[in-house]
Structures are given as C-alpha cells and as structure tokens.
C-alpha cells in the first residue's frame, strides 16, 4: 500500500505536532481559569491522553493494524459503521476549526502590523486541500523534513524565554481553590485527545516495530515540552497571563539577548507557524478519510472540497467571535469531544479485545 506512514513519522507527529496546537490560546485560557495552577490542568489532560494512547496502541495491535473502517464493518452492521464514521468526519471537522482560527489569528497578530484582510489566510486552505488530496505518505515525509525546523523554533523560543520569567509566580502550586484545576482540566479537553489521530492511522502504518511502544517515548517528549512551555509562559506573564492570547510565539521578546541583537525570535515564530500548517491539516486528513469511506466518492477531490469548503465557511462566519466560540466549545461541545475522543475509542478497544477476528493487516 503506497499511502502509508512510517512509525518514525508517527513519532514525530506525536513528539512535535501534538504540542503545536496547544501554544496559541490554551495557555491564556487556562490561566484565566486556574491562574498559577494552570499547568496542572494540562498535566491532568496529558495523563488522561496517555491512557488514551495506551488504549489506541492496544487497539491497533488487537486489530493487527487493519484499516479502522474494515474493522468496523466486521464488528458492527454496515449502517452503524457508516453512522459512526460520519460522526467522526463531523468531529474531525469541528476539531480542526479551533487550530485553524488560532493559526489565522496568530499569523495576523504576529507577522502583520495592521489588521490584514481575510484573503491573507486563504492560501492555507489551498495548501490544506493539496495536503488532503496527497494523503498520508507525503504528509508523513513533510513532517519528517520539518522536524529540524520545529526543533530550532521550539528550542530557541523555550531557551530565550527561560530566564525572562519569575518562577515563583507559579506558587502556591495548588492554591486556595483546587476545584478550578478540575474546571480547567475539563474545559481544556477541547485542545487534547490527540492520540485519537493515531487510532485512525490504523491500516496505514508501515513496518510496525515492538508493538508501537516507541510512540510512548515520543509522547513523553511531547508531555515535557508542553508542560515546560506552559510553565515558562506563566512565569513570564504571571498575573496578566489571562490576557496573553497568541503570546507564546512572542514570549521570548523579553530576553535581554534580543534587545541587543534584534528580534530574531520572529524566525523561530515563523518556523513554528509553518509547522502548525501541517498539524492543522491532520484532522482535515481524517475528516476526508471518513467521508470517503462513508460515501465512497468516485472522484478523489469531492471529499476534500466538502471538508475545505465547510472549514472556510466556519472560519469566515465565526472569525470575529472566536473567543465566544471557544467558550461555547468548552462549555457545551466539550461533551461531544469527550465522547468521540475518549468514550468511543474505549468501547472500540473493549469490542476488539473480546474476540480475535483475524483482521488482515493494512
């Protein structure tokens, strides 16, 4: 099968890509809820996601790396399987909306002096359309090539910001009101649940080694990077952190080194923004996959056109009320996210564990 992704590329997606969707709005959102304990909310979500990843890896091993849709056909009736697949197509489109608008706003605020036209961001959708049509293999390769870009961007931002913060701002660790940590954890789940993507790669992974256990090491790297980023973010901004949406890319500007050399941190910000394009395309890839499986379109560009058109419409309509949309998502749509990200994969894992169906590897 040519449309396959390697285990190494999956590791890069987990280790590098998972962090990228959490650097824009989430740090300020969590600071608003849990102040100095904001990083604990993320830590709880990361622990939950680790369990999800373990379940996902076991499921892939249970089904012998067979395509998920085929497994669904064997386990359930065809209409039920189609309904679940369609539901996931919708879910991935909804899940993609937040990173897309975050990406758009971040680029506009970081790289433009004045408010640019909406047209400025539209090429993203052309790139996304191309990425979706090309499938997993070029996607994985692109990620692999961009790893150094990511490493340079992320490390330089972390290192430059490292000494610009006051780490005592993170005290007291739990604070006066521990319930706000749980509230933050629950509401921030709209940014988490990324291991679900790995489940949908089932059937498209080549050369599985050691039952994909290496992916857990990548997950550890992702966890450390994300928590470090959040800790540094709060140390830098402390009490005004709730106001600092999209500030993570720019938080290294307080480094004394930059005031002498100049704002070369923009290069790092640009690198990370470029990497975010691929990560933002990931849910769109799966929305396309689910739609194609569900409706079996004869022409390859029909599903991508549907996916991209819907995202463009969402972006245009909701771009000016993004923070209200985030609030709506974290209060109400969150339950849809929990069901699709955690409950259904768990049920799926239980059903695949019970019997051996003798699935054929993808």
């Amino acid at each position, binding site marked *: 099968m040519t449309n396959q992704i390697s285990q190494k590329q999956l590791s890069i997606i987990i280790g590098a890509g998972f962090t990228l969707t959490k650097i824009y709005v989430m740090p300020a959102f969590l600071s608003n809820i849990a102040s100095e304990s904001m990083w604990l909310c993320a830590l709880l979500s990361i622990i939950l996601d680790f369990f999800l990843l373990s379940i996902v890896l076991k499921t892939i091993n249970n089904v012998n790396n067979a395509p998920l849709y085929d497994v669904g056909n064997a386990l359930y009736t065809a209409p039920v399987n189609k309904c679940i697949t369609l539901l996931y197509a919708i879910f991935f489109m909804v899940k993609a909306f937040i990173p897309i608008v975050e990406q758009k706003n971040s680029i506009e605020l970081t790289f433009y002096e004045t408010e640019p036209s909406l047209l400025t961001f539209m*090429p993203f959708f052309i790139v996304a359309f191309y990425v979706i049509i090309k499938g997993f293999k070029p996607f994985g390769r692109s990620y692999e090539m961009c790893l150094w870009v990511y490493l340079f961007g992320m490390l330089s931002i972390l290192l430059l910001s490292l000494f610009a913060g006051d780490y005592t701002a993170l005290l007291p660790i739990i604070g*006066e009101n521990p319930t706000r940590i749980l509230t933050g954890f629950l509401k921030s789940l709209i940014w988490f649940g990324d291991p679900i993507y790995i489940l949908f790669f089932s059937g498209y992974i080549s050369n599985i080694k050691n039952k994909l256990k290496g992916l857990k090491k990548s997950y550890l790297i992702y966890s450390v990077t994300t928590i470090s980023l959040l800790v540094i973010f709060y140390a830098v901004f402390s*009490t005004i952190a709730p106001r600092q949406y999209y500030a993570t890319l720019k938080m290294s*500007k307080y480094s004394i080194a930059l005031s002498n050399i100049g704002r070369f941190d923009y290069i790092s910000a640009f690198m990370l923004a470029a990497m975010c394009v691929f990560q933002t395309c990931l849910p769109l890839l799966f929305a396309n996959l689910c739609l194609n499986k569900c409706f079996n379109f004869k022409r390859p560009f029909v599903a991508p056109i549907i996916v991209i058109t819907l995202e463009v419409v969402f972006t245009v309509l909701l771009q000016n009320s993004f923070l209200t949309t985030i609030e709506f998502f974290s209060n109400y749509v969150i339950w849809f996210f929990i069901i699709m990200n955690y409950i259904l994969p768990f049920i799926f894992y239980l059903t695949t564990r019970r019997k051996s169906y003798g699935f054929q590897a993808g």
Partner: protein
Amino acid sequence: MVFKRAKIYVIIFIGLFIIYFTQDYTLINIEKTALIVTLGVDKTENGYEITSQIAVPDGESTKTTNKEAVISSNGKTLYEAVSSISDKTGWYPKLSFCNLIVLGESLKSENVMDVLLFFIRSYKIEDSAIVCTVKGQAKELLLSSSPLDNISGLSLSKIFVKDYENASRVYTASIKDFCTNYYSKSSFGYMPYVKTIPTDESGEGGKTVSASTTTEPETGAQKQGGEQQLVIYDASTCYLYNKGYYVTELTSDETLCLSLINKKVKEAFFTITATDNDGVLGEYLIDILKSTRKVDLKIENDKPTLYINLKVWARVSDANSTESMDIVSNLGKLNDNMKFKTETFITNNIVNVIDKSKKSGSDIFEIKNQLYKYHTSKYKKLNLTALEDLQYKINVTCLNYL
C-alpha cells in the same frame, strides 16, 4: 480534457498571482506610516493629550536617516487620541516600534493604570516598552533637545539601558512589569522619575526639534529666537505606586539600594565619608562590583518578618584626598572603617525604603505576594495588616573585591 484542466490551473494561478503578489488589498504605504518611537501622555481637563515622537520613513532621501517630528493630539481616551493622529496628519500611527512611554506629572494624582491598560488591551503594541514619569509635562520633555540624540525620546531611552539588570541607578519598569505587579496580590508599582538637567549648550540647525506638524507653544527649555537649550536627563530617582496611584518617591541612594536587593547588580557607585589607614577623614567613591542577596519572609509571632541578607564586594574607585601607595597599590582595598561605613550606608537606605513602603502602603518588597506564595494558609489572616505589622532584620556584609 487535459487541455481544459490545464487552462483552469492557469486561470487559478493568474487570479492568485494578481491577488497576492500585488498586495494592494492589505498593506499601507510606508510613506503614510507614522512609526511612533516614544509616546508622551499628559492629563488634560477633557481627557488625555498624547505627544508622539515619530520617525518618518523618508522615501525621497537616498540616505536612511529619519526626519524627526512631534505630533500632539487629544482625546477623551488614549485610543481616541492615538487614532486622531491619522485624522490630523494622514499618517497611520504604528505603535509596535514604541519603546518608551513617558507619563507627565499631571497623571500623579490619577490611577496610571487608566493609561497603561491601553497598552495591554491592544495586541498591536509591545508591552515590553519602558514606562517612566517626568517632572512637568511629557510633551515638554519630548520637545526638548538633547546632545545625545536628535530625537529626545531616543536619547532618554539610552538612560534606560537595555541590559537593565546591570544598571543599578535606574530602576526601570516595562509596561508588562507594571501591569503584572498591579494585578498581583501586592498591587504595587514603580517607575523611574525623570528630571531634565539644562546644559550650557544651545541647539543649532539639525539639533533643533522641528514641531512642524503642530503649532507648538515655546517650551520652558526653549530660548528666544528659535534656539533651544540642550538638556540631559536624570532618572536615578523612582516613584512608588499603590493600587495604581502614586504614593511616594525614593531618593537616588534609596533607589540604588533597592536595586541591590532586587537585582543582580554588577556595578554601582556611591560616596561615603570614612577614615583611611592613617586616620584621615575623607570622601571615598565606593564601587560595588558584585553582590549576592537573600530575601526571606518568615512569620514570627503572627507577624511577617523580612530577613534581608546582602553581601557586597566593593573597592575604592576614587577619593578626594591623596592616598598612600599602600591603598593605591592594593587596588582600592577597603579598610574596616570604610567597610563599616559602606554597610551602614546600605542598611540605612534599605531601612528608609522599608519605612516609606510601610507608610505609603506601596508593597515594594512584595510582602503580600510572598505571604500568598509561601504562607498561603496564613495569607487571609495576615494580608490586611501585613505592611503595618512588618518587622525586618537586615544584615549587610561588605567584602573587598580582590
């Protein structure tokens, strides 16, 4: 079919090329842009008067020099005042290059956060800009002319050296610092207080500020006949704030000693009166080259107690008397009397700062923040009277820097 598809691709490519490569839909011509480098804010009866010192990109000149210009505008809010720059001049104001915010003395009785919040509300303004307050009007200061730089705002910026960790005499604060401290449990603030010091020289030709875009009144520093007296700036004193309101001022020496406690000072000078090895009284310039500090807040008898342990490494840099070869050859080694006087000087100034902080309510030592961070369970009980009940123990040790 293939030919038809190719035609569609070509049409799409040309369409995108026209839209994106012309860039006409989004950019503002740079010659219509006012790059504000310094912003002065004064309180007026009807709101605020802002004075913007702008660097105008000159498209006609082959050199990359900037003309200097000062624009004043008024508004009920700061945003309105900034916006009116484009209404008045046709220049589109850009604040992302603004590195210095100067607040006039008219804001002394106001909550300065009313002004500073504007800078963290907008994403288009850098909150890393340094904020200071000036004697008199901010507008007056920005119209003054300095021998240090053509643009007064830039010459003022030179005082707030970028590597401010090492600049002990100026206690610099950025907008972010001020806002962060304001929203903390201590709700305090500080910023340098700038005074202009006239020099004997007068500005000529290019040195004279051209306020061509407005009809500016002649300022105090201006002489008759268009000549303007050149000034330099002193920012060694510091204003303290409580909940956004000015409460007290620290002297130059007190500011220096506050730096010794809160910053990693690598160079600081002050003068003491002490006796040399022969018992002769004289004035000595002490140079502190290194310092380490430990500040702890403990609760003793239900009262917050501040422990300040400061260790400084110093040498004699200069004296107003002829020294024996013994002192000169020992690289300015301090004798016991000099060490004692140095320790006393620092201790007294720290005590003064603590007393001013207690009296004014400006929690410059972040007692309430520390109570919340390290004694969370007692925070509610001690928070309200934390400053009044504050006890302190200061231990300063002076060592020779050899």
